[in-house]
């Protein structure tokens, strides 16, 4: 679980999405190409509690503050990426 800290995530939509796909794949014990960024996260079985840990990883890795429940409120990894990109934009603008 430590590896994502040594690998810098490129703060672009593409970089963040690739990283998120990797995290979800890791959690599901799947390869990243088995993860559809447009599929429902709940459908993948990402339960409520794991969502908080992923929120924590997002904060710690991407240096952006997110609601712990952000994962609950997004439809897919793609949607999550958009939300994070927007948050990063807000925080750098502010």
């Amino acid at each position, binding site marked *: 679980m430590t590896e994502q800290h040594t690998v810098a995530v490129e703060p672009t939509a593409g970089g963040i999405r690739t990283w998120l796909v990797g995290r979800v794949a890791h959690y*599901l*014990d799947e390869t990243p190409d088995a993860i559809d960024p447009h599929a429902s996260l709940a459908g993948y079985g990402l339960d409520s509690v794991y969502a*908080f840990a992923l929120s924590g990883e997002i904060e710690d890795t991407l240096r952006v503050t997110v609601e712990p429940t952000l994962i*609950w409120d997004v439809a897919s990894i793609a949607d999550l990426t958009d939300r994070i990109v927007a948050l990063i934009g807000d925080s750098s603008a502010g």
Partner: protein
Amino acid sequence: MGAEELDTLLGDPWDPQNPAGHAAALAADERAEMFAEGERRLDRYGLNAEFVPAAYGGRLTSADRLADVQRTLWRLDPSLAAGHGFSSFIGWVNVWVAGTDDQRREAASLLLGGGRIAAAFHELSHGNDLASAEFAARRDAGRWLLTGRKEVVGNLRRAEAFVLFARTADTAGSRSHSQFLISRAALPAGSVRDLPRAGSSGLRGLQLGGMELRDCPVPAGTLLGKEGEGLESAMRAFQITRAVIPSFMTGPLDTALRAAIGFASGRRLYGATAADLPYVRSVIARAHADLLAVDAVSTVVLRALHLSPAVSLYAPAAKYLTSRMALDAFEDLRSVLGAQGYLREGPYAIFQKMARDAASATFIHISRSACLAAMLPALPRLARRSWLLSPPAARELFEPGGALPPLDPDRLSVGAPTEDPVMGTLAAIGDGAGDRAGGGPAARFAARFAAELRELRDACLALPPRDITIGASPAAYALADRYSVLLAAASALALRDRFGDAELLGVLDRLAGRLGGASVLTDAERAGVEEQLYLAAAARHRDRELFDLTARRLPGQGGQP
């Protein structure tokens, strides 16, 4: 008003003539009824006001005050404690967390008037798995239609209102449920089918009810919080209840320990009293230490509820550990009382009732394994960000009775905490202990627990994501178990000025024993500590003082078993 006044109002529990004592509570238990005289006294005391924040007209100013009052009841009769007020508190916290000001006032006024609020969350087929709850609410022409079954819900039948947890979307995920605050009287006549009361082997007096509804209409305004936020509200609200419950376990343990000491001091075996047997003294000493450990960790968690977002981790950790410790202590004490601990009559009958009630109470609300699963997501993040890095906690976390900022439910967060102040304190104490080479046993314990924290950090850093879910490996669950022990050890070390020397060492030895591995104490040191602990416990029994950190004197004299 407070725990002392309540103790006075209830009188000497050991007086068989006291209509609000153990004998009467046992008689109610035999009939599987709520303890009527107990309920009358609690109404006179205005117990419900203890659940309602001062801003809404009640007396709830801090969690430790609430816990003090509750512990008094858990010592007397856990059925009364759980069934008279606490089940209303479980419903109320959801209103407090998610309700509009009007809903809060409505619920507060119901409670302050002596009414009840049931928490209709549980479905027998889903247990703790709230996200799978099936009871459904669907929108229909500006109102909600309710369909489904709720089962094993405390006071459901006799509560004037209930908080309902219901599915409001068919999709999987964590935004598919909502809460409702529903007045029983507002339900259309004949729309509710009450299910037969569920019987139970412990907490026999509890009125565990169920209901079945089919297309039962309720107004739109019954929605509590936003649609889809039911699970999140519950997770926030239940931090409060789960932070408070661990302290209750000192109640049944206090009474059981009192019965065991009374028995051992009076019983003649092999030409001496049972209390002369080293085995009996050790068991009593260890149970006393366990009680103090439970008190230490629950005291800190109660204060953390006001002071630290890490309570989202501390609460399940403490609920898990204190349940285990209490049940284990009951098993050990059972061996002291022998046949007398197995009888539902005679001077020690209260023991078996406390054992049954405590065992059932550990399932209230959330099971121990669910507590561990709830802790897991927090651990890797704290390992990365906090353990061995963060500073010690602010001193006020470890000052029982000290002033606290108001409990603000809006500040409760469901996320994984970023700081762990209690472990910060453990690391600091452990560092200090390491500096004093050749320090006493307390320093050796501090170093032992700090070393354990380092191991725990390394293990948690290596946890793969799958291992922070319900599907985690047994080894991962074991890490959560170890964390809970460290939380208690850190709490005891931080509270060391509140303990006598032998008490502190006894507590730390019991906790270290739960971690396993080499003993910190030598056999001779342990024997010495336990002898002193036994003598301290016997003195508290004789003087009618509580076995917990307060050592408060109880009403009554003589006539203890």
